[in-house]
């Protein structure tokens, strides 16, 4: 169905990889020139570089590097996500880092780091070239000794690769954000090139520093292991500590040449990988123009109204929404197709599908915000707990079993609007003070023991006295973290289609339960005093808020698309198809506005994130909630200023009163009079 569209994504990824491979020769040439840098012999330097560039070993290492780039590109394609994975506590982050999938990625990065480092060693040549070299033992017999310089470089590559993969998780480097300013790919690439150079240089510096410290203390382990397995000898008379130059040992100077070579190799490695990443981001987020309607039925699944309602490949939904937002602003011809009626029948199918999907997106977000807000009291503390221990035991078990897919007693799970993006982004209901334990129960780190340990917290959470809906209980333990495996490739888990009826049997508070409850409280109090555990389980400020709005780029586009289409409909909509949905559009925007305003009154919600400029990780998701708030206000104002007094007529016309909820109408009316006046 969407295979042909998915092929578009794959082709884009392939193109980005091809460009990254094509950029490899100039990068390698620059690396060779910089690594063999010698100011005293400029002619020798240039001629050596030229001869090296044309040598067989350079071509071999170039092929190797090309292979590495292709693997990195495939990893990018495999691991990218358009909805960031936000860890709400340190323990959740740890869980993400130790996830098997992530572990695999780290391992591959390590190996590729070694390969790149080997290519670097061969390229730099000199003392780095081979792993072993002939030496003379103390007894005079010729032996093969371990070349520690070569080993240091290889291990540095492994370390940099590993730390790159770890930092990728911490900084959400696999998150692909869409930009508000559309530019051509070449200009965008050119614009991001200085940042890539800067980032790779600084990141390489930090990695090399950390690596030197680690090697200084733990370097003997790989050294002796290498010697044993390869039957090499350590020439102890030459090297005492590798980083301290043997010649300048008395003055205690570091071996600057070695450190420079380590740094330039790490920079080269990170630069090629970052370039691949940047190219991938640029190619994959390029605007794709979906046809609004097709004259052939077999192509209808590729049309915008159809793709926009698809949920599975998240990237396609995002691209479709982006296309909707752009066409509503810039393309009158395609807008007229949106407003057109179907040929036999005369139904506005296109507009209905688009507006319905956008409205359901908005109502999802509203639901999510309301549920989140209901769990958190306005002052940021959890609401006072009720004494209803009778229901706790039952819900407790359901909570635990809900996290275990193999338990036959499956969890009640309702198909709610909010489960369109079914993820546990509802954020933490607990403040650090009241509930220090907010682990990620979905993470592989959370052992059954840990789950049992943290289960009482789930029941202490204010879910049980505020929200009775079973699907919320199901999501209860997942609230404070995002699951690691659900959307790494941009595809959220879908709720099971068939759901058993909620189990809400009320059991008597038994003595045993009471006892268990007390013990749990004691354990909790005991653990709360331990600093490390507090550190690990404390919720990160504003992370829950970020997680709540993690996919808000979709909502922003939906708001823009709807408001621009409504604005255009004032003069372009000949059949009046928009008029029928205008009240529901306005009311859903106003309800969302109210929910967003309430959310921003919560602590940490309106605090601005620290602007970090020196990383390749995209921090776009940290400010999505502010962008959503601004877009929402602008969208409402856009509609009200376009329609102006005509809305008053709608308001007075009983046909246009949506749903009969009075307060919506009230604010709807207010938005007419309030917008720009006092």
């Amino acid at each position, binding site marked *: 169905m969407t295979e042909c569209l998915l092929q578009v994504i794959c082709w884009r990824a392939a193109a980005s990889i091809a460009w990254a491979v094509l950029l490899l020769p100039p990068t390698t040439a620059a690396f060779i020139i910089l690594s063999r840098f010698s100011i005293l012999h400029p002619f020798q330097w240039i001629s050596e570089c030229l001869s090296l560039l044309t040598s067989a070993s350079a071509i071999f290492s170039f092929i190797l590097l090309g292979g590495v780039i292709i693997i990195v590109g495939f990893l990018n394609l495999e691991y990218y996500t358009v909805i960031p994975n936000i860890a709400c506590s340190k323990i959740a982050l740890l869980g993400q880092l130790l996830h098997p999938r992530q572990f695999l990625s780290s391992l591959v990065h390590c190996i590729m780091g070694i390969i790149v480092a080997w290519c670097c060693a061969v390229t730099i040549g000199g003392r780095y070239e081979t792993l072993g070299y002939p030496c003379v033992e103390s007894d005079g017999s010729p032996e093969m000794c371990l070349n520690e310089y070569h080993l240091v470089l290889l291990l540095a590559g492994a370390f940099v690769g590993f730390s790159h993969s770890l930092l990728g998780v911490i900084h959400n480097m696999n998150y692909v954000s869409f*930009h508000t300013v*559309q530019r051509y790919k070449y200009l965008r690439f050119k614009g991001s090139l200085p940042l890539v150079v800067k980032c790779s240089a600084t990141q390489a510096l930090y990695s090399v520093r950390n690596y030197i410290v680690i090697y200084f203390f733990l370097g003997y382990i790989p050294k002796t292991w290498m010697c044993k397995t390869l039957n090499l000898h350590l020439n102890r008379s030459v090297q005492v500590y590798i980083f301290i130059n043997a010649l300048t040992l008395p003055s205690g100077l570091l071996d600057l040449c070695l450190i420079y070579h380590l740094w330039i190799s790490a920079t080269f490695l990170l630069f090629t990988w970052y370039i691949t990443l940047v190219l991938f981001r640029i190619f994959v987020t390029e605007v794709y123009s979906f046809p609004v309607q097709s004259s052939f039925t077999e192509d209808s699944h590729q049309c915008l109204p159809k793709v926009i309602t698809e949920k599975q490949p998240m990237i396609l939904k995002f691209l479709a929404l982006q296309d909707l937002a752009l066409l509503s602003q*810039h393309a*009158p011809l395609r807008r007229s197709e949106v407003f057109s009626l179907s040929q036999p029948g005369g139904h506005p199918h296109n507009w209905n599908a688009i507006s319905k999907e956008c409205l359901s997106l908005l109502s999802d977000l509203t639901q999510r915000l309301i549920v989140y807000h209901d769990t958190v009291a306005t002052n940021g503390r959890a609401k006072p707990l009720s004494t209803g221990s009778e229901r706790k035991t039952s819900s407790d078990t359901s909570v635990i079993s809900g996290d275990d897919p193999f338990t036959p007693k499956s969890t009640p799970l309702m198909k709610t609007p909010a489960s369109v993006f079914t993820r546990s982004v509802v954020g933490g209901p607990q403040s650090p003070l009241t509930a220090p334990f907010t682990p990620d129960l979905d993470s592989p780190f959370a052992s059954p023991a840990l789950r049992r340990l943290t289960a009482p917290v789930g029941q202490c959470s204010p879910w049980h006295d505020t929200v009775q809906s079973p699907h919320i209980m199901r999501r209860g333990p997942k609230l404070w973290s995002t699951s690691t495996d659900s959307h790494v490739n941009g595809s959220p888990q879908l709720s099971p289609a068939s759901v058993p009826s909620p189990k809400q049997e009320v059991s008597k508070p038994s003595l045993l339960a009471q006892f268990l409850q007390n013990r749990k409280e004691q354990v909790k109090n005991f653990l709360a005093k331990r600093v490390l555990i507090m550190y690990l389980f404390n919720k990160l400020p504003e992370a829950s808020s970020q997680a709540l709005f993690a996919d808000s780029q979709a909502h922003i586009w939906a708001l823009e698309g709807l408001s621009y289409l409504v604005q255009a409909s004032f003069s372009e909509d000949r059949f009046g198809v928009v008029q029928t949905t205008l009240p529901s559009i306005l009311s859903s925007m106003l309800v969302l506005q109210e929910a967003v305003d309430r959310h921003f009154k919560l602590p940490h919600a309106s605090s601005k994130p620290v602007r970090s400029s020196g990383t390749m990780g995209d921090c*776009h998701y940290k400010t999505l909630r502010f962008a959503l708030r601004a877009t929402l*206000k602008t969208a409402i*104002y856009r509609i009200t200023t376009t329609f102006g007094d005509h809305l008053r007529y709608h308001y007075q016309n009983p046909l246009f009163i949506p749903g009969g909820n009075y307060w919506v109408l009230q604010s709807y009316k207010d938005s007419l009079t309030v917008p720009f006046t*006092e």
Partner: protein
Amino acid sequence: MCSLALFPPPLPSGHTTLCESNNELLSGASSEDHRLIQDSSLLSLYFPRESLKLHSRTESSSKAAFLDHSETLWMRSAAAWRDGGFTGLLNEITNSHTEVPKWLSVSSGCTLALLQWVSSFHGSLFPHLTLSSEDMIAEFSQVLNWPDCVVRAFAWHPHTDKFAVALLDDSIKIYNPKSATTPTLKHRLQRSVAAVQWKPLCASALAVACQNCLLVWHVDPCSLSTRPSSGCAQVLSHPGHSPVTSIAWSPSGSLLVSASPMDTAMMVWDVAAENCVPLQRVGGGGVTFLSWSPDGSHVLASTPSLLFRVWETRMWTCERWPCVKGRCQSGCWSPDGSRLLFTVQGETVIYALTFTDAPGIPAGTSKGPQAAAVVADLSETTFNTQDGDITVGGEIQSLAWDPKGERLAVLLKGDAQAADRPPVIAVFKTRTSPIFELLPCGFVQGEPGAEPRLMQFHPNFQHGALLTVCWSTGRITHVPFYFLSAGVPHFGLNGSPSLPRPQERPSDFANQSLFTEMIS
């Protein structure tokens, strides 16, 4: 082509322009009349220069107030690096030659000299780079004689009757005829305000171009606070992007562009996310003035050298427009965004560019205009009045086109030395069909001794156009132009065009205003 010779002669001294009605500009003899005919909903403000408390000292002079404190060389070097960057560090090392090794001080001195030589070379290519930031704002601002202005910037809100006024003391006041509170905005970083602009489709956001950064104030219209805290302001800054001399919001309210003559890149800000995309183009040496077309499709960006660019906003590509004589001083767009009028420094004519972009065609394929056409000649013309000869004309400081596209106001620089060549505002009527042309309307003059410094049209004036003028005396007045708009259809509830109210004589205005004054 229209020239100043076709204009009615300027008013005799003592008369001020009141309004346009029945196709002629009406004048009053005394300032009393002037105040009387003002629409009661419009505030006419007066900021006497004496009432403003100016900064008694500049930022750098505060150093002298503290005792000299000897720090180690490392500390001083670190401080110099922080304050003055690389050149500051070199300067510090060169100056403290007693403490550092001789080779270091000598080499840093040589490097410094080399750097200065290179930068002077760069400065000879782009002379504006040698100006101080205050001088640079004065040079490139749309305000006439910016350093001396009491009102340094002015902005009408695009949707309601409120406006923001930036004053000489770096404060911004927001006036609303419907509200008793006038919020005063002050911020530590709000210095040398070059421009202010309200965000479209938003009630509260006001962007301010400052010396070192860009501020976006969020002033809640429902708040009763008269001094919003500096927490209400977002600070947007980018290294190397100062002083900011011009800003422009996109008409859809989503993006903000800012320009600095020091920076070759024009910044496109996503204000909510506080991140920016630099649109770098070499050539020009900076960006001085920005104007976003009302339909949102193009942005005019002029540079300090003989070049300006027109960006299209779909994919952010640009067309280069080299000028022959001088840099592009000012420009304005027709309401439909199809026509750009601009003026060039050193020339006394207005040029027009026509963009015939069909909206459906993707950018880049459609051809823009090939050459600019001269539409008006504003060379010096001498009028014989009863007070003697008055010479009007010359270079143009700024242009303003009313939102209906019917009146074009041109602020002429005049000559500060010669008494008989004051700065004056010439107003044209514009007509688009059958051909685009400018027709003379008249001169707008203020009280005796008051020179126009800054002007802006009200964005949605019901009965025609309303020109707001800030005078050198610190007065802000509004000159209404009453006319029935020809081209724009009137959207009213009952479908009939809204009636232009005043067809009466000025004496009737006076009576009417007196009546409202009595009952108030």
